[in-house]
């Protein structure tokens, strides 16, 4: 740790001011989250003073039916949206990577639009769209989540397509041709040669889609009917009207879930791989 060797000119990271700069940035990024997590165990209604360790807000959060319902809804939507985005995104990536067809540039450009268009505009568009279609809002679970799930797929699958396409670029097409020469059908070649090659990008794409869906507030806020509530929408209304320690507890659970997912992604992709997907 301490400078046993002299600092070489390019070892900027060993300079004190640089280290403090990084340290302060990390403090800025993490202090709010760490404080929130610590105080979710605090035995006091107000968030300021440490009054002792308790799990009672976790108990309260888990007994709060509407909060649990919101959490289950969010996870269901994220799960469904991930699976469908994965299929559509992978197909779109293969389409753009393999074929030449009319209006290809237009299709490609349009597909990147859901990533660029501001969330608020997309949310508004879905609000009007589903109102115009008279999309039923009183269906039984999980069909009542269909509008939100559709909206989530629209902004998730272009990300999946992007990740998969990057991976496809490194595919040696001769492998596929060899498979076909040896008698494989189009489908067999896809399943046994192409699919194994893009598998890491499918895992990365799935995790990306899952977190994007779980994270989304704005689009869900506009698409959700009066009776369907997701976790972010629920937290939003709780934060708006009163800050309760239950929110801290529920948030902590979600943060831990996110961290766990990130570490699963790490196992599959390595830190560098994840950095490249963003």
């Amino acid at each position, binding site marked *: 740790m301490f400078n046993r060797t002299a600092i070489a000119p390019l070892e900027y990271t060993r300079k004190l001011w640089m280290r403090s700069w990084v340290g302060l940035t990390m403090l800025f990024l993490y202090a709010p*989250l760490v404080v929130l997590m610590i105080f979710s165990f605090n035995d006091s209604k107000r968030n300021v003073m440490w009054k002792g360790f308790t799990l009672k807000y976790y108990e309260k959060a888990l007994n709060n039916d509407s909060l649990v319902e919101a959490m289950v809804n969010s996870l269901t939507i994220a799960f469904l949206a991930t699976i469908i985005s994965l299929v559509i995104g992978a197909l779109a990536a293969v389409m753009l990577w393999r074929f030449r067809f009319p209006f290809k540039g237009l299709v490609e450009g349009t597909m990147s639009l859901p990533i660029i268009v501001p969330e*608020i505009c997309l949310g508004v568009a879905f609000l009007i769209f589903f109102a115009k279609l008279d999309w039923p809002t009183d269906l039984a679970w999980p069909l009542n989540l269909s509008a939100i799930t559709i909206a989530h797929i629209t902004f998730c699958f272009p990300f999946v397509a992007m990740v998969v396409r990057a991976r496809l670029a490194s*595919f040696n097409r001769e492998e596929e041709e060899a498979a076909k020469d040896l008698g494989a059908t189009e489908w067999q070649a896809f399943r046994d040669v192409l699919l194994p090659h893009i598998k890491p990008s499918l895992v990365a794409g799935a995790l990306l889609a899952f977190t994007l869906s779980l994270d989304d507030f704005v689009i869900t806020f506009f698409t959700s009917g009066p009776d369907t509530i997701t976790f972010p929408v629920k937290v939003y209304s709780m934060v708006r009207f009163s800050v309760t320690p239950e929110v801290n507890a529920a948030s902590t659970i979600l943060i831990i879930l996110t961290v766990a997912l990130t570490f699963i992604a790490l196992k599959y992709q*390595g830190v560098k791989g994840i950095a490249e997907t963003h």
Partner: protein
Amino acid sequence: MSGALQDWKSQKKPFAAVATAPVFWLGLFFIAPMTIVWLYSFGQNAGPADINISGTLDNYKRATEWLYLSIFLKSFAVAALTTLICLIIGFPVAMAITFAAPKWRPWLLLGIMLPFWTNLLIRTYALMALMGTNGYMNKGLGGLWEGASWLRTLVGMQPLEAWTPVQLLYNNFAVVLGLVYVHLPFMVLPLYSALDRLDKSLIEASLDLGAGHFKTFMKIVVPLAAPGIFAGVMITLVPALGAYLTPDLMGGTDSQMIANVIERQFKRANDWPFGAALSFLLIYAMFILIALQSMRANKVKEAR
């Protein structure tokens, strides 16, 4: 890419198999909703739930009124300020990651990315809890204040008045801080990937030839990292311009950004055509920004 692209006509079946679902989805659940918004922006309210698309330009005319124009300008100023602060904070961090020992680098990167994966609402809420009148930020400022007061007594001056907690939330300062907090990872990652690709021997050469660290930074590092800087600026500026949650939760009555005005047209004011027009103006603004960026990128390519 290995192998040439296949023409769709020679492979109709496989092409149909992969193209149908994405094109269908994009058409039905993206193009169609956006088209309806676009059409609505040329309409007017004809009844409580009825919109008459009459081809009027009144909604756009109304959007150029000073009230809305000033909100557009203000949103842009807030987003630009956020981007600038992110760049100033993020550049040294990206440098530090680039030049860190190989065993530390992945962990520093992970440290930047982890908040990015955490729920936006939770992060905003966590920051708000810290910034409240009873939060730790106020406590920290109070501590500094008392320290300053004590220093004054040391040199024989009157101590300062007792510390009263200041309102950190619900103003423009809170909005900018919140946006910086949320968008900082967006800036650091592209900067890092540009700096990582940079040929380090150029920096060494510059230092060997007698330029100082600052001069090397300005003349070598910054120009070579320019693509990353522009990418980072765009990736931060575009979502910050359309931010809804941060100004809504952390801002005061005067820190409305354009997304909040759009939301109001759809929820409280119930003026959908006007909201549709504002949405499309925001989308056009994004397009202009992206076009500027790609024009710049093309120029760089031509120059090489």
